[in-house]
């Protein structure tokens, strides 16, 4: 057979593919294109799916248009790996030519996307759910905006509440990576300052499921355990702890007592009643806007269609960020010209109305918002939910520490044995 014939077929296919996909710039036309990135694969898949539901809710609330322009959402997925997130973002920005980018979900991805945003000054990047401190504290990017508070801010107020309950010595059990570091720092910044003591910190390797050794190390004289583990691991830990005869009360991190865990299909949930935790929202906060938000979520995404009984953390933060994107567009009447300068200025100066109060941005384009300290209770239907103990407003990223002295949380920082 003619060898060149095979070559021709190969080249023709290749050229056709290249031509088809080498499309030039999209016409700037009427619809505004917003890229939406969440983790739809891997262990955070359930959270990512809910995050997308939250973002879609913001779009639905505006009827699908803003300032006379139709909103076009283009979705992308990652699996909590930074390189996959950057690839997905790059496709949305360079291939699909989105005007605004909302995402990603996890902390490490957020930092990588922030780095990428510096190379794409023509697109505005708004966070999705990522809560790493370094994203906006270390080398912030001028076109990366975060309208949700981050991991450290989510724990402000828990320290005082713990001392109020009489927990003078707390042991920390957390996973060994950046997000728990920030959560622990948010807790300890206040707790240590008010006189609490943390004699022991147990950093569990990421993905480890066997907590028997950690449980064996719990000293007899601690009053409570601060457990900052993700959904699966928290459930696992609680089971193993009870089976080992443990009975110390627990304090939860923001993702420990989240909807994922309260939802899980086992009977272990009863032991969670009474646990204190803190986070950017509370299921049974009785603010009018919050109730409206929850009702809206439940109406648009009933359980029968795959929604959770109540919006999860990811749904909430994605909703806030997407709402910010759309409110900003409405404020400038849909004008994204001049490298989106007016739009970005509107975003920086905006006071965003969220279901939990107002959110402003600080100099690094990081949100200053509200944190709720909550306690787990059982509602009338027998589902587990949270009740608000305290509401802390205007929480800044530096957690009340002078910015010059602020150090990002790590294994040993802060420390007050």
């Amino acid at each position, binding site marked *: *057979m003619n*060898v*060149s014939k*095979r*070559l021709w077929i*190969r*080249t023709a296919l*290749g*050229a056709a*593919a*290249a031509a088809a*996909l*080498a*499309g*030039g710039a999209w016409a700037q036309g009427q619809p505004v294109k917003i890229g939406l990135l969440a983790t*739809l*694969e891997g262990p955070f*898949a359930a959270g990512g799916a809910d995050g997308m539901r939250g973002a879609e809710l913001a779009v639905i609330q505006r009827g699908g248009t803003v300032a006379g322009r139709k909103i076009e959402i283009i*979705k*992308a*997925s990652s*699996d*909590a*790996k*930074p*390189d*996959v997130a*950057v*690839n*997905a973002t*790059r*496709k949305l920005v*360079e*291939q699909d030519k989105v005007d605004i980018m909302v995402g990603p979900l996890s902390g*490490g991805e957020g*930092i*990588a996307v922030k*780095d*990428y945003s510096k190379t794409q000054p023509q697109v505005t990047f708004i966070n999705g759910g990522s809560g790493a401190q*370094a994203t906006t504290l270390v*080398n912030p990017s001028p076109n990366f905006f975060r309208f949700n508070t981050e991991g450290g801010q989510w724990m402000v107020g828990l320290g005082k509440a713990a001392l109020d309950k009489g927990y003078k010595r707390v042991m920390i059990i957390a996973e*060994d*990576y*950046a997000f728990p570091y920030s959560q622990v720092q948010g807790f300890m910044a206040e707790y240590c300052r008010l006189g609490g003591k943390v004699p022991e910190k147990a950093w569990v*390797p*990421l993905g480890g499921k066997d907590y028997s050794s950690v449980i064996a190390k719990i000293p007899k004289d601690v009053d409570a355990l601060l457990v900052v583990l993700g959904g699966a691991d928290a459930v696992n830990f609680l089971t193993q702890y009870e089976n080992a005869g443990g009975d110390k009360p627990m304090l939860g991190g923001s993702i420990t007592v989240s909807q994922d865990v309260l939802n899980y299909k086992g009977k272990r949930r009863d032991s969670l009643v009474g646990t204190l935790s803190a986070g950017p929202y509370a299921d049974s906060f009785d603010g009018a806007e919050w109730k409206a938000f929850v009702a809206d979520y439940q109406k648009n995404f009933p359980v029968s269609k795959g929604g959770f009984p109540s919006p999860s953390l990811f749904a909430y933060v994605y909703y806030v960020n997407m709402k910010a994107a759309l409110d900003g567009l409405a404020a400038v009447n849909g004008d994204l010209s001049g490298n989106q300068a007016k739009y970005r200025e509107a975003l920086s100066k905006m006071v965003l109305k969220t279901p939990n109060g107002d959110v402003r941005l600080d100099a690094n384009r990081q949100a200053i918002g509200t944190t709720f300290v909550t306690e787990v209770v059982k509602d009338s239907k027998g589902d587990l939910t949270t009740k608000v103990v305290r509401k802390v407003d205007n929480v800044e990223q530096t957690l009340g520490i002078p910015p010059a002295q602020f150090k990002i949380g*790590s*294994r040993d920082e802060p420390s007050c044995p």
Partner: protein
Amino acid sequence: MSAAQWRRAMNGGLAAAQRPRPAAPRAVPMPAPAEEPYADSDAPRWLKYLWRTLSARHVFVMAFVLVFPLVATPFFTFQVAAQSLVLGLIALSLAFLAGYGGMVSLAQMTVAGIAGYGIAVLGFSSSPEISLRWPWWVAVPAAIAVAVLCATLIGWLSVRTEGIYTIMITLAIGVAFYYLVLQNYSVFNGFQGLRELKPPTVFGIDWRAPVPFYYLSLACAMAGYFLVRYIVRAPFGIALQGVRDNPRRMEALGFHVVAHRVAAYALSGLLAAVGGVLLAWYNALMTPGSVGTGWMINILVIAVLGGVKHPIGAFLGAIVFVLLQTFAIDVIDRERFNLVIGLVFLAIVLFSPDGLLGLWAKLRSRFGPNQVLTSTQRRHP
């Protein structure tokens, strides 16, 4: 009398044409040796070799890959083409080991990761307290050297047992490295990894821009490809294939089987290391996720997809993989991407163990005109 003249005297000429040829066996008829129009000239041997082997398709492909970035969008050049070349280079190291050495090593991504982390630690990155800030012309060779050394060690650990153990052992070693970089903060910066890894600006060109980076990857990929093509025809490569087919006999013939295998690991480690440096520059970061089990298996999938028996298979597999990965979300539910890749991989292994190249060869032999030569055999002995 040169070899070419002797050959002509024996095979060519009027007398030979009149001599009745034996009927070609129905199995595999080799085509007549190609004409050598320049056999008499004084051109150097390598030039004559080129004239012999080059044909229209080679020229066309070369022209295509050279001209491609000038017609395609930067996105396509960078995310699809350059990424395919880089991943293809790493997969090539695996294909070389598997196809010609008979050892399937899942630790090729680990070696690439070692090189990537090497330039991050020795060069510049976002963590000034970790990076040593050596200039690139020291950091890059040093990182590659370290990675090759590690590849040799991995090889030495893996090859002293039966072939089938290699997969298991390399998988375990790869995961060990993953946990090491995940847990260690003083050198590898743990979960966050090291970011802002940029290629240097040499000769005034920013090598991270899509088109220069594409040409850089193309150069490295081609170098790797031709290196492999050359090695498999050299004595070492032939011996390696002998070791693959029958180690006992090779041992009896006096070849040091373990040494050959370890050397193969070192060579493939070189390929993977270069690929790793490029990958680090492409991603602009190096995190534990880049060297986890997901990517280790992906490289295997890429190599098998294209076919491990011919070096071009790795790049073919990489192109298909990257296209699927980039555009799958537009066609199917991105959530089921892993399912699609798994099914494709399974289908290839079940029905066409030689990968896409093998499939192509089978189709050609089935539907093409009466030629039984498969694409995986070379035209010249």
